[in-house]
């Protein structure tokens, strides 16, 4: 059941015809806490699934069950076509896991880390060295290759961690909050790394509480809260569930917010949402551009100066707030 990768390597693959990841009615309890409550998920091969939810939603528990680190109390889960409880070894040969904190060895250089983990997949000494070299190129780790992780930036440490999880080019990769606590430049580096894996046909399940990350990387998003799936779909589908576009008005002075809100309510006939922290008022744009024109005219007639008026698609932030009832953590 081995498959050939682009680089000509042969490694265990997904059972043909099976989805890369399946969870059916998975329940996991920790004492009195219900971490996962009949959790369902299907990730087709070759896609990126974003598992989105606030802290404590059960994202990491789901990843730990799918990567054979935890057993479900009930329900069923399989990865690459193998049951995580009955055939954990077959699963482990087909997954890569990058957990919440980068698990690299601080006493070994970047190259030695890669070679050591490659040896655990029983690559010979020569093959391990060659594979380490390939990964150093692929993940842009030349600067890290001969230094120990102590002096790395957060982004470089995470890239080494990703490279380790990708040693045997696993068909399924789990990334648990890959960019948490990272500055924007480093996040872009990691996203680039993830995209290069996806281009090779790897199926990725990534958890995140950054909405833009899911929006950027995922083909499908599953929103979970309190261990339950509360919404599922492509990013665009989730956004359209919020009933279309919105008109955003950005004001210069906080004091203008109320006046603008009243005016928008009059013009559009629906209740505006006011966000004082962003000096922003937004309303649903029922008839899109015509509505935008009416709002602009009304503002002009009332001689209210605003900084910006825009028609936009709802953000995943709004999806998230709508489904979880919480502002993002």
């Amino acid at each position, binding site marked *: 059941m081995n498959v050939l990768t682009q680089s000509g390597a042969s490694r265990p693959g997904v059972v043909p015809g099976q989805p890369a990841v399946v969870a059916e009615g998975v329940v996991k309890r920790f004492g009195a806490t219900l971490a996962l409550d009949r959790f369902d998920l299907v990730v087709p091969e070759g896609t990126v699934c974003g598992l989105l939810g606030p802290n404590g939603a059960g994202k990491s528990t789901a990843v730990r069950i799918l990567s054979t680190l935890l057993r479900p109390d009930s329900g069923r889960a399989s990865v690459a076509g193998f049951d995580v409880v009955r055939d954990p070894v077959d699963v*482990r*040969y087909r997954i890569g896991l990058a*957990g*919440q904190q980068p*698990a690299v060895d601080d006493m070994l250089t970047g190259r030695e880390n890669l070679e050591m983990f490659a040896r*655990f*997949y029983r690559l010979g000494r020569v093959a391990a060295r060659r594979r380490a070299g390939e990964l150093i190129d692929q993940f842009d780790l030349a600067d890290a290759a001969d230094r120990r992780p102590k002096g790395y930036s957060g982004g470089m440490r995470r890239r080494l961690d990703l490279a*380790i999880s990708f040693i045997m080019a696993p068909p399924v990769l789990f990334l648990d909050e890959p960019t948490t606590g990272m500055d924007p430049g480093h996040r872009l580096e990691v996203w680039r790394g993830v995209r290069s894996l996806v281009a090779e046909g790897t199926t990725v399940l990534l958890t995140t509480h950054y909405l833009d990350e899911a929006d950027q990387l995922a083909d499908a998003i599953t929103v979970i809260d309190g261990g339950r799936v509360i919404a599922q779909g492509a990013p665009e589908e989730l956004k359209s569930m919020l009933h279309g576009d919105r008109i955003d008005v950005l004001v210069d002075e906080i004091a203008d917010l109320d006046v603008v809100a009243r005016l928008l309510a009059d013009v559009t006939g629906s209740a505006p949402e006011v966000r004082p922290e962003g000096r922003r008022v937004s309303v649903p744009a029922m008839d899109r551009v015509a509505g935008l024109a009416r709002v602009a005219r009304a503002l002009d007639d009332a001689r209210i100066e605003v900084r910006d008026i825009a028609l936009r698609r709802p953000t995943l932030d709004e999806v998230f707030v709508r489904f979880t009832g919480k502002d993002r953590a």
Partner: protein
Amino acid sequence: MTTITIPRTRSERLRAAMSDAATMTRRNLSYWLRSPEEMIGALAFPLISVLLFGYVFGSAMVVPGGADYREYLMPGLFGMTMMFGLVNTISAVATDRERGVTDRFMAMPISSSAILAGRSVTDIIRASADLVVLLGCGYLVGWRWHGSVWEALAAVGLLLLLRFALIWVGIYIGLVLRSPDSAAALYPLVLPFAMVANTFVPPALMPGWLGAVAEANPMSSTVAATRELFGNPAVPGDSWLAEHPLPLAVGWPLLLLVVFVPLAVHRYRRARR
């Protein structure tokens, strides 16, 4: 071309486990060999112990029977070093667990037994190095063995057997603790185990109840047996425990192994669930 195949037959699986244990041992040893503070500690601790206990305490100590205190002391320090090694094991296991390295290993196709074997082989190598340094320090301050080479090797064997049992105690505690900080906090708790024994003072000279506790300390049996095998001065006690050091120096570690190997393996497997 890189090919990864899954070991299926019993012999393939055994070969894979051996290879993993060897890789794990090399990895663990590099942690020890590459951290200067650990290396300095490993060399300084025996030297300082010998000087401190041998000369500072030793000048006030009189061994009943008039023997040289440093001859009496050295087997005690051998035993104590084996005891303190426990904290190293706990701290290494807890550190890997906290940093997520254990999770990574467990999500990889590495058998639990290879991970545990790698840990215990590493720590035995390390304990042997500790012993060699300590034997050298002892030699410098006038300690000698007086029996045959075989008896000396048997003494070293018993010390390593105790350490081997304590490795499994350490793996279990390290998995339970999960945090290397709490491992460091264990030093003061290990201290009484190393001191309430025949390490520095014969239990016969302690208050009755304390002497009884000291004699029941597994380390006392190992130290007493070591004194006997090296031909170093001993102060005989009259309890049953004190009169049978050799069988007890084998029996206590075996008992610890019987209890803690299953506990450690169970805890490891449970960590995987």
